[in-house]
């Protein structure tokens, strides 16, 4: 049975296939591989590092947390000319609580010297987030990261993460663990010069 062979003469005469039909599968496969390549490269995109332009975003702030920005929604581009600290946090995040007091203290110290603080609340329930802000007496600008758009743009790997952007919109400092007041102060002094 298995060695029965179809003679070419016996085989049915097929009309020559049009090149489109012939190469359509190849085109589809090439497109799919290109798609995979795209997937790979976006997945492997890393966090913006110091020296890179900070990805722009727009954030709608919590009602009573305008901070020293005074408008909502705010976009990063609007803040050109100021030094901006972007802090990703969440109320369920234990290490965030470690740095909360330091962040607020640094804010008090620099809020009138052209520094803007922007808290981005990641995957949080609003009630818990507000309780957290009250607990640490935070009054700088804060808003929820709706649809995880902002965190997606910064490819954050967790919370807390902190970025400091200079007056020209270039990232000058990143940290993916809790920050302290002293190291923030050092960065601000350098950038405000």
């Amino acid at each position, binding site marked *: *049975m*298995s*060695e*029965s*062979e*179809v003679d*070419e003469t*016996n*085989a*049915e005469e*097929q009309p020559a296939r049009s090149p489109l039909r*012939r*190469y359509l*599968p*190849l085109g589809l*496969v*090439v497109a*799919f*591989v290109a*798609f*995979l*390549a*795209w*997937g*790979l490269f*976006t*997945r*492997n995109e890393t966090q913006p590092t110091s020296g890179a332009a900070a990805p722009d975003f727009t954030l709608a702030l919590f009602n009573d947390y305008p901070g020293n920005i005074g408008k909502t929604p705010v976009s990063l581009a609007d803040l050109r000319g100021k030094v901006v600290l972007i802090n990703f946090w969440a109320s369920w995040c234990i290490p965030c609580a470690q740095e909360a007091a330091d962040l607020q203290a640094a804010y008090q110290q620099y809020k009138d010297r052209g520094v803007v603080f922007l808290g981005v609340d990641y995957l949080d329930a609003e009630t818990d987030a507000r309780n957290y802000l009250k607990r640490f007496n935070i009054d700088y600008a804060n808003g929820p990261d709706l649809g*995880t758009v902002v965190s*997606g743009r910064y490819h954050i790997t967790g919370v807390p993460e902190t970025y400091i952007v200079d007056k020209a919109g270039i990232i000058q400092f990143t940290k993916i663990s809790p920050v302290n007041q002293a190291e923030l102060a050092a960065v601000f002094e350098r950038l405000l010069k």
Partner: protein
Amino acid sequence: MIADLGLIALVLAALASIYSLVTAAMGGRTKRADLIESARRAAVMIAPLLTLACLSIIISNLTGDYSLEYTYRVSNDTTPTLLRITALWGGQNGSMLFWCWLLSWYVFFTFLRPWKSNLDLQPWVNFVAIGTQAFFILLVIFYANPFARLWVDAAGNVSAAVFQPAGLRAYIAPDGTGLNPLLRHPGMIIHPPMLYLGFVGLTIPFAYAIGAMLARNKTDSWIRASRRATLIAWLFLSLGLLLGARWAYDVLGWGGYWGWDPVENSALLPWLVATAFLHSVIIQEKRSMFKIWNMVLILLAFCLMVLGTFVTRTGVISSVHSFARSSLGVPFLLFVAIVFVGSVGLMIDRSNLLKSENKLDSLFSREAAFVLNNFVFVAITFTVFVGTYYSMFSELFTGQKLTVGPPVFNQLLGPQVAVLVLLMGIGPLVAWRKSSPEALGRMSWKSALLGVGVMIALFALGIKPFWVLLGFGLIGYTAGVTFSEYWRGMRARHKLSGENYPTALTRLFQRNRRRYGGYLIHVGVLVMGIGVIGSLNFQQQTQRSMEPGSSVTLGNYTLTYDHALTCDPTSTMPPDCADWYKDRGRDIEVIAGYFTVSQAGQAPVELTPYREVFLNNTGELSPPGVLTTIGEDLYVIFLGEQSGFGTVKVFINPLIQFLWSGGIVLVIGTIVAMWPSAAERREAVTMPERVAVRGVVQ
């Protein structure tokens, strides 16, 4: 020292594979027997060399050689011996080496002896199989080398590299970090090797298919060999999937066994395609039809396997199972591109070889049934594919991330699987070439009656959902057909030769392992279907926070909470904890809940579900306490204790035992179908020469 030996063996294996690759291609082109033979010998050398490499990793783990990055990562001083051995595949780099090693044994057994048949194919099959092998070995050497050592610079920063980087000193870590606690469970120890065996096993049929096209072989003779190779891979894939489901059920603690997770799906996709191939290959063997189609299926199974591996190993799609993001991405993408574009391109170029005289005598024939079967399998594959990759598509085109969860798959696949079960009950009754609805009716009306009877009986018992009734009815019908096939075969033999029935059944299996083993697989699938329908539709669950001494009732069970026990190895533990740490690493916190289950008229049973919390923050497991009966599982998960209240989640998983027992039947059926019969063994010796002669003439 030992590790250096392993590295040398690995490099030699790489050289042997490259040598074999080049020689096989030259041998295939020039048809020089000495080159072909040399390529074969080089191919056979790889398995022993990789065995050495794997052994040296195991020895490093056993002796705790923490100068090796891999040993440092997957082992530590308190790791038990068995886990130090299985740690070979407990990390990304080691599992890649392990993968190569498994593949090398497939290659070894395929080329152990010079082929007697398909001589024209041998160099090309060798070329493709070894090409795949070479790719993975090189991937291990350059991108995932488990032989990398630890080095330290003047500032005390530790890094890993195979060779000493300039200015760095060798570093020996005082102790390792230990195996990922997730991978210490016995289920997780055997589930990956089975799945890997299934995955790499698909390389051999792929090599046959591509080899046949490269050799411009027009015969069907290679398809028989590739069918057996596919069946072996299929067996391991099935085992891997089943064990994975069982592991999830036993350990992950969410009450289910299959979550339609991208990693699970990427193992299911090649399985589905391989299943379709195992059916449609029968037509090619019997009727010499559908050559192109079978080629497509073999190539597709391998491509989906490579794709699944790429996606899970490089984090293109995220998943609970995914390995850390790694540098494998770009080389792996290149391999995917070569395999995909190469396969399709070659098929287009050689399509004239694959012409076959596809004739249907009737739309009501076994052939037609197989065509429909393949159509449904491919439709299911397509649906799972869309569901798995849709979130990637939507992210590309809209930036919107999506989750495609079980409800989507269940709804889209339910009807398709129902049609498949129906075909399973029709196909075996339809004769080759030509049959008629009347004949089908004559042969299956009793089974149909059985199916309807099942539906009526269940309806009378108060089961209302239409899909459930339809599902059980179809299972009843198809089971009726399958068993009557056995019965008819037995009775026929009994009448013909006077054998008694048990002998007749045994003979039936002996004479046609493939068909009757195949039916056994069908029975397994049907039994599993009962479990799937039951657990999908009749699961009950409740969650409670309870004081010690209080009870919760679910179904016929009353669950009483006694107390909780928290064991944190980083502080002093209550004496009861000693039992929990007999063979458990001290980097795991255990929180156990002690419960008693009582049922009317039965002795109470104690259940102790617990949580294992990994102190290095890599996650946790919740092995349930399970009370198993034939009809259902009482499945209890302990969520933890807070201010005197223990929180518990209780499930009743009906009919779930059918899933596992059906799985066992399926595996037995596969082994029966795979085992070479006496006739086939004879054939394997005699047939080849005829083919070989023609191979040379061509």
